[in-house]
């Protein structure tokens, strides 16, 4: 009535306005420096909420579902994948193609080729869950942008193993801890 509702609302926005400056005081000199941020601002904290992306990065949760990677068994030094092709058959978008190698390595069957097409993958995670060997994982890779779709987004066996060695040296997924922001 008589603009009191308006004034009430304006007090809320003013409070937020002041809060962002109060919140900034705490991190004043570092605010625009390049630094990793491990967690988003807490639920009850007040102040500016946005993350200044290229400088600040939030950690990825261990279960974050990014592009696939093939995990390597740290003891044997070869991939856990036995080329069974279950992942290929369970994928709803037909993004995976696996062939099995003729010879065994270390008494274990291995894939000969593995082709993973990130163009069509929808990161549903079925392939990872179905894998009998737990040989697949999701890498916490975030910046996957390319200038063209097509080949740049199709990963082969080596690239996937590389990703696996980089992000999951222990050879397990979900990762043990939150992925550090790079």
């Amino acid at each position, binding site marked *: 009535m008589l603009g009191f509702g308006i004034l009430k609302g304006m007090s809320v926005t003013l409070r937020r*306005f002041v809060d962002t400056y109060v919140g900034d005081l705490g991190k004043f000199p570092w605010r625009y420096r390049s630094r990793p941020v491990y967690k988003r601002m807490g639920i009850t904290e007040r102040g500016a909420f946005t993350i200044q992306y290229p400088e600040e990065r939030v950690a990825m949760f261990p279960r974050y579902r990014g592009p696939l990677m093939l995990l390597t068994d740290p003891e044997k030094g070869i991939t856990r994948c036995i080329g069974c092709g279950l992942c290929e058959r369970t994928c709803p978008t037909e993004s995976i193609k696996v062939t099995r190698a003729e010879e065994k390595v270390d008494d274990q069957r291995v894939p000969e080729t593995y082709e993973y097409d990130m163009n069509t993958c929808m990161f549903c995670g079925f392939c990872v869950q179905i894998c009998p060997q737990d040989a697949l994982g999701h890498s916490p890779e975030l910046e996957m942008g390319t200038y063209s779709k097509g080949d740049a987004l199709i990963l082969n066996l080596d690239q996937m193993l590389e990703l696996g060695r980089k992000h999951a040296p222990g050879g397990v997924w979900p990762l043990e801890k939150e992925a550090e922001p790079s």
Partner: protein
Amino acid sequence: MEAIQGILEFIDQIFVKLSFWFSAQLANFLPDWGVTFIMMFATVLVLIVFGLASIIWINVFERKIIGRIQDRYGPNRFGPWGLLQCVADMIKLLTKEDVTPTKADRLIFNLAAVAPVIPTFMILAVLPFGRGMVAADLSIGYLYIVAVGCLGTIAIFMAGWSSRNKYALLGGMRTVAQMISYEIPMVLSVVGVLLLVGSLSMVSIVEAQGQWRLPFVVLQPLAFVLYFTAAVAEVNRSPFDLPEGESEIVAGYHTEYSGIKFAMFLLAEYINAFSICAIATTVFLGGWQGPILPSWAWFFIKTYFLYFVLIWMRGTLPRLRVDQLMNFSWKTLVPLALANLMLTALVAKLVPQYSHVGAIAFLVMNVVVIVCIALVKYPRWRRDRREVVLVPRTATPQVDSS
């Protein structure tokens, strides 16, 4: 002590002295009319440059404040703290392709992009930016502002009409209706002040407040609120930004404009918003008067404070609808402004000028008016309050699932 006062005095008058010095230099080798001519020219130039420069600052100011209100930082990439963001925007706007729709009325379409800027700069001429700092102290100052301010309407309607775009047409129509109806309360609310001053000149309005030793906002709070509301509507700022109501009619009258022509509209809009704040400062907040700081600093502090309120309102309030907008003007603002005018005339006759008794009488008068409105409105407001009903069980019969 005296030295300090001298320095303050010097800082206060620095711009005035500068212009005297400049004209004295010119007088050395130019005839009188030449000096006058060049001085006028120089003043206009200064005002235009000032206007353009203030846009750069106001734009960043606005975006930053809106950002902070919304829990984010606003532009902070280009330049220190993002202060150069506006330069980047300008470059973007200026280098963009300038599109004219094929079906548009070319002449009017192009003319409309230039037209709104001129009157906005003309208003700056009569504003006293500091003691003695006024480009032209017209004796009909306020009347001039009203007259020139009206021209903007035509420009916007030209833009809306010539674009041959239905959204633009709707935006243009809305603007004309809105600006014409808000002009009236805007003028009427100031007339109360003019009664007290007895002059239309902006400079004498400021000086009268010096004589009262009170800004007119204390004597005429209702008029101030009325003026500010009407003026916000007059320059199409939120919550009265219907002509360009982004979520409804895309961008209103400037839907079809791009590049530099669009920049012109933006320019006009920002300078307009600045000038209504400056007018409100001059008429109601005591203009350049204030202790210690130089007069022009006071003027800008007050003006930017009002501008902050504008941005703050933009960040908070929803927009009115077109018919409610009209109702609000004709059924609320105009009657209130008339009532205020009449009561002011009455009280001004009864109480002595420039006295505390007079000030208190005016204040009481305003409070009485506000309380009266509140009493009239309260029962209706009580009746209209709406709350949801919470029912623990569903009222419809159980639906058979088979």
